[in-house]
Structures are given as structure tokens and as C-alpha cells.
């Protein structure tokens, strides 16, 4: 493996959580749900997956990995369900509740890695390193590129198909475009569907956390995410919320962030410049959208059939 090859692999490794959280954000925005909580959902997903991987590693054999990933997705869905339920029952704006839940998740992880999940010597605020059966296999030897990349791509294709080709997908697009019209014309239970979409969105973000733990870090610690859940908003928006576009923008941002780190190392250019570029791209896309006037909110108007 050449140095360049390793760099490309690193960029793709970085792209995996960005694609997955981007898909989570994109799916919810499509349905008009402003889930800004992918960060928190990713963190609880990572925590659940780490806990399951550690506790089950001795007797679950090869099953430990799928169980851990499912646990991560379930935890993410649960975290999103809190905000979904607050929205449905009490009309709490999800913009605010999901961000509050992000902070709670940060403190929860901090508690876990200093408390019940801390490594046995109780020196470092992190879990033990995961045993091999709990790790995602590599897809290219001698790189860090793991099978999570394939899961992310497969999920993107599935979501693209669901949104484009299925009745559920049509309903999701309908409530995102105009909830009132969807409720009255298409007989869609908007509250129920957006609740379900919210939870699936959380599940995808939770899966992102699980894959990060089982594919990259092999342990849970604080700061496991450098803000993937927030960058995800840029990833999803620049792709126009299109799942396959999100794969492309996720890889693009993965390249951007890994090269920013390399630039900081080699040329002393601050890596934080990547965040500025990402935000500028969102703003540029807003200018573009305003100029085009072909957008309602941010979803491109469907051509009449």
C-alpha cells in the first residue's frame, strides 16, 4: 500500500460517519423534521455498541458484531424518539430538544467512561479495547478501511430507492414538501409518519456511532466524534438531501477534513479551516437556491407527473 493509497483510505474512513449521519439528517429533513441531534444520537449509539461489545464478547462469538451494531442503532433511535415524543405530545421544537439531547449525550458518555464502562485499571477515561470478534473486518488489508464503508454505501442506495420508488418514500416527500396538503389530500397521518422518520433518522445516526466504535476507535471515550453530527448537516444540504449525493458529499468532506489535518501538519494551515469551507458551501448553496427560485424551502420542487 502506497502512502497515497493510505491517505485515500483514511479519507474514506473519515467519510463513513459523515455519510451515515448525513443520511440521517437528510432523511429527517426530507420529511420536514429538523433533526439537529445526529451528534447525540451518534454518541449514544457508540456507547450502546461499546457496552454490548464488551459485555457479550466472551460468549456471543461472531454474533457479537451484528448485535452491537443493532444495539447502536436502537440506542440512536431511542435518543431520537425522546425528541420525537416531545414534539408529538408537547409541540417542543425539535431544533431545541435535539440540541439539548446532544449535550446530555456528551455528559452521559463522560459518565460511562469514568464509571460503569471504564477500563479495569481506572486510570484512563475510556473503555477497554474491543476484542477482535467485535471489530468490523477490513476491506483492504493494511489500511484502516473497514466494512462500515460498504454498509454506508448500501444504506444510501436503499434509502435512495425507498424515497424515490416506494409509497412510504412518496409520503415522506409529501410531508416534507407540504404537511398540510399531505394531511388533507393524501390522507397521511403526518404526526405519526414524522415520528417514525425521526426514529429511523436517529437509528442511522446511532449506527454511525456503533460503526465508528467497532470499525475505527475500538473503544469508547469522550470526544469520540469531532462533531460528525453537525458536519452532517452540511453534508446533507449540499447534496440536496439526495442519498446518493450524500455519499459524494460525505466522501468530499472526508477528503477535505483529512487533507486539512495533513495541511496543518505540513504547512501549518489550521485544520479548522475545513469547518469554514463546509459552512461556506452551505451558504453558497443558499445563495444559489435563492437565485434559482426553484426551491421550496430547500427541497427542489418535483416536476408535475
Amino acid at each position, binding site marked *: 500500500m502506497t502512502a497515497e493509497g493510505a491517505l485515500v483510505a483514511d479519507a474514506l474512513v473519515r467519510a463513513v460517519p459523515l455519510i451515515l449521519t448525513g443520511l440521517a439528517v437528510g432523511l429527517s429533513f426530507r420529511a420536514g423534521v429538523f433533526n439537529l441531534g445526529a451528534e447525540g444520537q451518534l454518541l449514544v449509539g457508540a456507547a450502546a455498541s461499546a457496552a454490548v461489545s464488551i459485555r457479550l464478547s466472551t460468549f456471543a462469538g461472531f454474533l457479537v458484531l451484528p448485535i452491537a451494531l443493532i444495539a447502536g442503532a436502537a440506542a440512536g433511535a431511542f435518543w431520537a424518539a425522546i425528541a420525537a415524543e416531545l414534539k408529538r405530545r*408537547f409541540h*417542543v421544537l425539535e*431544533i*431545541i430538544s435535539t*440540541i439539548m439531547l446532544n*449535550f*446530555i449525550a456528551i*455528559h452521559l458518555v463522560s459518565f460511562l467512561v469514568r464509571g460503569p464502562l471504564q477500563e479495569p485499571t481506572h486510570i484512563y477515561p475510556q473503555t477497554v479495547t474491543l476484542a477482535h470478534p467485535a471489530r468490523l473486518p477490513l476491506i483492504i488489508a493494511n489500511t484502516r478501511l473497514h466494512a462500515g464503508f460498504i454498509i454506508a454505501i448500501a444504506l444510501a442506495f436503499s434509502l435512495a430507492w425507498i424515497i424515490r420508488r416506494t409509497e412510504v418514500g412518496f409520503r415522506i416527500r409529501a410531508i416534507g414538501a407540504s404537511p398540510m396538503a399531505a394531511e388533507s389530500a393524501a390522507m397521511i397521518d403526518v404526526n405519526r409518519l414524522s415520528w417514525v422518520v425521526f426514529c429511523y433518522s436517529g437509528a442511522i445516526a446511532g449506527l454511525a456511532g456503533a460503526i465508528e466504535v467497532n470499525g475505527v476507535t475500538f473503544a469508547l471515550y469522550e470526544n469520540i466524534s469531532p462533531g460528525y453530527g453537525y458536519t452532517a448537516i452540511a453534508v446533507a444540504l449540499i447534496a440536496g438531501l439526495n442519498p446518493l449525493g450524500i455519499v459524494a458529499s460525505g466522501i468530499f468532506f472526508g477528503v477535505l477534513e483529512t487533507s486539512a489535518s495533513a495541511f496543518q501538519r505540513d504547512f501549518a494551515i489550521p485544520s479548522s479551516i475545513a469547518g469554514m469551507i463546509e459552512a461556506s458551501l452551505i*451558504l453558497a448553496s443558499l445563495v444559489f437556491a435563492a437565485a434559482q427560485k426553484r426551491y421550496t424551502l430547500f427541497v427542489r420542487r418535483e416536476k408535475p407527473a
Partner: protein
Amino acid sequence: MSAIEAFLEGTIRTATPLALAALGETVTERAGIINIGLEGAIIVGAFGAFVSTGVGGVWLGLAGAGASGALISAVFAFFVVRLRADQIISGTAISLFSLGLTATLYRQMYGATGAALSIPTMIAASVPVLSSIPLIGRALFDQPPITYLLYLLAPSIWWWMYRTHSGLALRAIGEDPRAAAAAGVGVPRTQLLAVLFGGCLGGIAGGVLVVAQSGSFAEGMSAGRGFIAIAVVVLGRWHPLGVIAAALTFAAVSALQYLFQAMGWAIPYQAFLALPYVLTLLGLTGITGRAVPPGSLGKWPTM
């Protein structure tokens, strides 16, 4: 200082930047605009304060903070008032941009390692007589002068919002911009000013973190206060005095940790750190009555 006094002092200290940012956001939201970019205004304000305090002392620092916050919010206003772009997306982008911008400038100007540089801080000035009131005196009246300005600002904003013609115009826009426009109110102009005012106070809130509290700048030191301030506005029912009460409540819950630590309770400290957010969520469910936002908040009727 007793544990109770430390608790009260901690409450006011935490509440000051939060209340400043939330008051500004109240004015912005009353104009029908939700500024998620407030987090950005705070961090940019903190950096502006850090730079300008080094030049001309703490008061210039706070002025620089307010100007920086207003400046970044002018960008936000361009998107939402001029282009009618989506408010949530524009605000999120502004916050992300500001966090990246300040981190980049800080590392460029002060080195990649970001050695903790300190600047002169605003020293507490105790108010004669009032500061010697038992128990609450020192907490309320032995604070940096910016806190006293906040005591004046909250009732002033209330008076302006509910007792003047322009305050009524602002609230009218928040309820229904089309009706306000029909009544002869300059909607875009008022909205622009409301966003700038909110950004300015957000910037000053960031400035307080630097010049009155930490005495230094750190990347991401806004630490979500902008988002908390937005929640505080909801908890305070979009009313300036309600917002002050909500900010104090949030701060008091945050400061509980000092009290419980002093009592030696063996509860994980993360529980206390998370508690204010949990209570904010509970508060938002409307235990104290349902929150009714301004009618046009976050939406754009075609004008």
C-alpha cells in the same frame, strides 16, 4: 463565603452571559426570526473581545465583542431578510462558520498550539450598601459592572417592547409580517435591526465569557450557550422579564453542583452537568403552561 453564597454567586455568574444572549434573541424572535446562528455570534464576540481587550482594555473589549457579534449577524440577516433563505439552515451554517473562523484566526494569530494567553479582566465592583445585604448582597451586587448593565437592560427592553410604538411594531411583525407591512411598518428594516441587536448582545455575551470570567479565549468556548439561550427564550415565553427569570433558573440549576459538592453528596458530577439540559427539556414540555411563539416565527409568508 458560605456554600449558599457560592451557589448564588455562581448562579449570577452563569446567568449573566446567558441572559444577555437570550434578551437579544428575544428581540430577534419577536421580529419573527429565529437565529440559530446566535452560537456563532457568541463565539465571534468572545474572539472579538479577546483581540480588542488586548488593544484597549476591557470596555473596548466588550465594544469589540458587540460589534463582532453584530457583524456576523449581518451576514445571517443578509440570508434570511434579504434572500428569504431558510432560517434554520442559514443559522446553523453561520454557527459552524463562526466556530471554524474563530479557531482558524486564533491558531493563525496566536500559534497552532494556542498557548493560553491571558488578558486583563473586568474586576468586580461592589455596590456600596446593597452589596452588604445579607446572603444575596454579594451575589447580586459584587459582580463585574457588565452585570449591573444587564440589570438596567432587561427592564429597558421590556419598557421599549410593550410601551413604545416601535416596540409594538416589532411585535406586530413577529405575529404577522403582512399585516404589519399593511399598517405601514418597514418590515425588512425592522427585522434587520432586530437581528443586528440580537447579534450585538450575543457578541457581548461572548465578550463577558472572556473579559469578565475566563480572561482568555479558547476554541469553542461558547460551548452551546447560544442554543441554550434559544431554549431560555422559549422557557421565558418570549417576554424580556420572563427570559431573565428563565436564565436565572437555568443558571441556578447549573450552580447546584457547587452546593451539592459542598454537601459532599456522592452523585456523579456529570449528572449535575446534564441536569440543566434535562430540566430545560422538561420546562419546554410546558409544565408551566403552554408556550405560544410569535405567529410568524421561523416561517415566511409570501409578501
